């Protein structure tokens, strides 16, 4: 019995995040939920909880929908897969349960063709961005989550990069210095510009 993405509800987008502990995937999953709220959409974001060890593989989920979201199971059939650490592709089946038109976004210095070659990744519409390098250059830390959001905006059209920048200006400003806020916006826009598709 295959119930399809969330039982086939229309207007529902399901995202699965693959990362290593410490890369900020849970924060990114939650940020996408908050961006959906800004668009007047329903949202849900949660990690698949396990031991929270830095460097260990983790999974997180985001759902965005025009209608109230009832399902609370983990995402089985994602339309979007975001991989914050390319080395996970050889350790985890990142496209498990996804259909052939899944959008896959990978943080890597390789172009999409290079990822397919190195990891034997098949199917889907593959996008790559060197989010770790962008993070190092804009934030001086290898936390690729904000750049991945910029690349996600470009690859999926799920939200406008301007709206993300606005969100960062408002939300991050509550916790971080102006310098950090501007660094995040630079990371966002650079990755939006640099993401590569096939």
């Amino acid at each position: 019995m295959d119930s399809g993405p969330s039982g086939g509800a229309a207007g529902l987008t399901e995202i699965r995040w693959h990362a290593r502990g410490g890369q900020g995937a849970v924060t990114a999953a939650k940020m996408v939920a908050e961006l959906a709220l800004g668009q007047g959409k329903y949202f849900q974001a949660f990690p698949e909880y396990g031991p929270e060890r830095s460097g260990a593989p983790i999974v997180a989920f985001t759902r965005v929908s025009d209608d109230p979201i009832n399902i609370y199971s983990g995402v089985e059939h994602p339309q979007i897969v975001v991989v914050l650490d390319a080395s996970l592709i050889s350790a985890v089946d990142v496209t498990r349960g996804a259909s052939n038109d899944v959008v896959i976004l990978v943080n890597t210095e390789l172009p999409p063709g290079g990822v397919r070659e190195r990891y034997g990744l098949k199917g889907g519409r593959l996008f790559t961005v060197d989010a770790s390098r962008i993070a190092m250059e804009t934030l001086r830390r290898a936390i690729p989550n904000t750049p991945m959001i910029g690349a996600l905006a470009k690859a999926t059209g799920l939200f406008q990069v301007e709206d993300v920048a606005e969100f960062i200006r408002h939300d991050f400003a509550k916790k971080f210095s102006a310098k950090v806020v501007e660094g995040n916006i630079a990371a966002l826009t650079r990755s939006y510009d640099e993401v590569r598709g096939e």
Partner: protein
Amino acid sequence: MPRLNRETVAVTGNEAVAEAMRQINPDVVCAYPITPQTEIVQLYAQMVADGKVTSEFVTVESEHSAMSAVIGSAAAGARTMTATSSQGFALMWEMLYVAASYRLPIVMTTVNRALSGPINIHCDHSDTMGGRDTGWIQLYGENHQQAYDNCLQALRIAEHLDVRLPAMHMYDGYVISGAIGPLVMLPDAKAREFVGPYHAINPLLDVANPVTVGPFDGLHGWYFEHKVAQNRAMDRALTVIQGVADEYAEISGRPYGLLDPYRLEDADIAIVVVGSTAGTTRMVVDKLRTRGVKAGMARVRVFRPFPHEAYAKALEHVKVVGVLDRADSSGAQGGPVFLEVRSALYDSDPRPQVLPFIYGLGGRDIFPDDIEHAFAQLEEAAQSTRRSSIERRYLNLREDK
């Protein structure tokens, strides 16, 4: 299409409850942190430190002490709240009975988590299902909104003079507690007006009218009568719970009942379920309905007191009822909710079949396909001329095949 309310905020389940507590601003909060409840205690401690609330926040060295301090302050005359999960709930055990027998209207949030062992921090309902006979009112919520709404309502139920029993409200650990979801809060003033001022009954600090609380009662004392009085208060709580819900619906626009029926009116088969899995089940019911299957659902909201008449009325026309328990009662005929529902339907004629399912222990995920599988078994039982076995059925269990 239902539009997202413009007042919606994105919060974790625990943040939703911390906000409800902020609006209540109880006199005393005593709590000890435990996963996955920790965030509530942390957020509330921050609110105290920031001067957003005026509660006396008592840090303690264990949950046994947390419940003891809650009892002490409530007996002294304070409006008192706490929160816990799992092992913390288990460590409170003897004091839970004491709180109920002193008739103290304490409100406790319990974020549902499995009990050891093996050690497990994930969601199931073993903790509070085990506490069903402690004499506390028990309300279960499905999502962030209900966690918040139940917290405010639990206070009014507990403090009602027809009840005066402690009340706990629950929601699923991690699935709700740590997930980001939508919440619409009442404006602070409205929430505070709903909660109202606290009136302590026979407080210890009223030195002009001295009372004794919890003395030794002896063999020829009134223990038996006391327990019967507690149980009668529990029975009266059913009316109070609905009254409080109706009043809350007027100010929030969100109606609540003793149970939460979904597409049950003409259902041939139905699932009874507690917590967040009700959401997933509702989605599966809709899917089956498009195929012409007359499926329905009842979500358990109030478990203590158990509204058995309401269940009999809601389910008596259904051919086969499947009860999904996220806790088991080892050696019993089925899980705790199964036992209640089956018992509630005993006097119905014709009597629906009631089948026990166990799922999600220790946080094992449950998917729409698992629930469809359960419905398929109910359908099969409904079509059979013989009554089905009431052996437990397990959903998403890894077994040698």
